[in-house]
């Protein structure tokens, strides 16, 4: 009797679970936190157009996402830095452009900061806002950054720190949202986050005199110094055709370009929408 009940229950559970899998295809991704807002917007639009395709994306950091692709845990990864030798077996596809903005608390009136100053702050050489110049504060700087899981961390290392490690006084947080939150709550803080994260409560600062705005973000010719491509990373062999189709759509479709721009990225390759 009890075995019968058990079997019926099991079948009922399966029956409930079945519609979710029947005919549908789930594409599994992970990686960059910086790319998350734009990717989620793209996923949503793509899912609406292609019934039966479903995305899951775990924002565990770009560097962690690459490992997921290498081990086969993920079918694709979002990545915010250029390829490194350790990324063997993966193919990088440029998806769109992003600017890494340097953010301070609104209480800080600093307008412009040079790459050299940034280097000195994150290497622990300049520790007081009075040393930086242009700020109304005379307090100790609280530099905030990402932990090593983040592709954003590696990009910052390459673009600002000449691949030197950040100083021990840099507080390394586990997600871009936590960096933004830390800057929002601490008048002395400075942190970095992508264009898509620029919201109320933090002030982006000009870097080398150029504002962190979508119109200045480009890699060739380089205007805003912390411009970067956001990549979609696929395994070099046996990449999922569905993911490749999505990548092509996201790179070229005019509507996808608008979605990228609206979500905080800068469309680089998409056709212009007809006006």
């Amino acid at each position: 009797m009890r075995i019968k009940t058990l079997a019926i229950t099991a079948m009922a559970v399966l029956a409930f679970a079945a519609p979710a899998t029947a005919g549908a295809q789930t594409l599994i991704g992970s990686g960059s936190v910086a790319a998350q807002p734009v990717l989620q917007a793209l996923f949503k639009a793509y899912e609406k157009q292609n019934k039966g395709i479903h995305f899951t994306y775990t924002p565990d950091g770009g560097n962690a996402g690459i490992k997921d692709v290498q081990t086969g845990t993920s079918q694709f990864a979002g990545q915010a830095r250029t390829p490194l030798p350790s990324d063997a077996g993966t193919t990088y596809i440029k998806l769109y452009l992003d600017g890494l903005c340097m953010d301070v608390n609104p209480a800080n009136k600093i307008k412009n900061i040079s790459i050299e100053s940034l280097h000195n702050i994150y290497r622990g050489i300049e520790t007081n806002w009075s040393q930086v110049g242009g700020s109304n504060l005379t307090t100790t700087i609280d530099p905030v950054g990402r932990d090593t899981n983040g592709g954003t961390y590696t990009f910052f290392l390459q673009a600002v720190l000449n691949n030197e490690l950040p100083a021990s006084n840099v507080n390394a947080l586990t997600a871009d949202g936590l960096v933004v939150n830390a800057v929002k709550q601490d008048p002395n803080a400075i942190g970095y986050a992508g264009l898509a994260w620029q919201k109320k409560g933090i002030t982006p600062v000009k870097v080398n005199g150029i504002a962190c705005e979508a119109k200045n973000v480009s890699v060739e010719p380089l205007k805003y110094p912390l411009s970067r491509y956001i990549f979609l990373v696929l395994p070099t062999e046996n990449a999922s055709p569905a993911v490749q189709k999505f990548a092509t759509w996201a790179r070229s479709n005019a509507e996808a370009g608008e979605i990228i721009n609206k979500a905080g990225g800068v469309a680089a390759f998409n056709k212009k929408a007809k006006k």
Partner: protein
Amino acid sequence: MEEDFQPEYGPKWSDQRVERLLGALVLGVVALLLALIVVVFVHGWPSFSHNGLAWFGPGGNVEEELAQISQSAETGAGYIYTFHAWPLIWSTILIAGGSVVLGLIAALFISVFLVEFAPSWMRAILTPVVRFLASIPSVIYGLLGVLVLVPFIGNHLISEHQKASVAGIISLTGYSLMAAIVVLTIMIAPLMVSIFTDALNSVKPGWLEGSLALGVNRWRTIWKIGVRAARPAIVAGTVLALARAIGESVMLAMLSGSTAFAPNPIDGLIFIFEPSRPLAPTIVKSSDQLSSPPASATLFAIASFLLFSAAVFSLIGWLTRRSMNKYLAR
């Protein structure tokens, strides 16, 4: 085995079935545990064997050591294993130890109050509340800490003078020993309270009544008889809380500050505002380096150290409980 006696649903067979099934389950769990310990130690062994006892010692910058270890897999010039874990171990001792001591004191008084002095309506409300608090996922405490406690400490308790005095070495932003210990205490105290109240409730009523009948007041009775009789359970609860404190990773990764710095009590009051990073969050934060063999060995070495200390503490707890059991007339 008797061939002729096989009742279809007889008590004998169903008993044997249950016995064997449960026995197999227990054996399976033990085998799984042994396999886990062996795997973790085998993976971590290269890190221990290259460093020897210096693994546990101070010296060098943990951050730079970890970076060198994980990069050495790509250079082709041989793996580097040099690692000195003392700042991480010291941070674990301070945070876990501090919160268990605070939690023990708080939980002891709260449970004495709940069992002996609280009016029954209050007990009826507080007991389920404490049990609920003990089961809240740690990441929620972490979020509350990030949004409330850390900014409060950073903006109101730490002075500019204190920040300037350590500028360039560490940042005093509120991500600190204090934030970690306070939140961890709030996390583990309910666990201790629920174990302690159960123990105090199960003290034989006759012992307490005998003491009261002799004219001893209620406070002295519960303290000298109740708490003393419940000591084995108090030790057990404390060991359980300590294990949770040592193993806590997500909340501490969010609150303790991520710098592998060894806070120094000689620095004075500023010491409790200093950031540090315990062992468990280090594994979480470096998990992207697992594909580099030497880094993976280092992380597994940290894991086996955590496993080892958890085992030692439960052994100590067991020995203490055994030596105390003579107070219990069971």
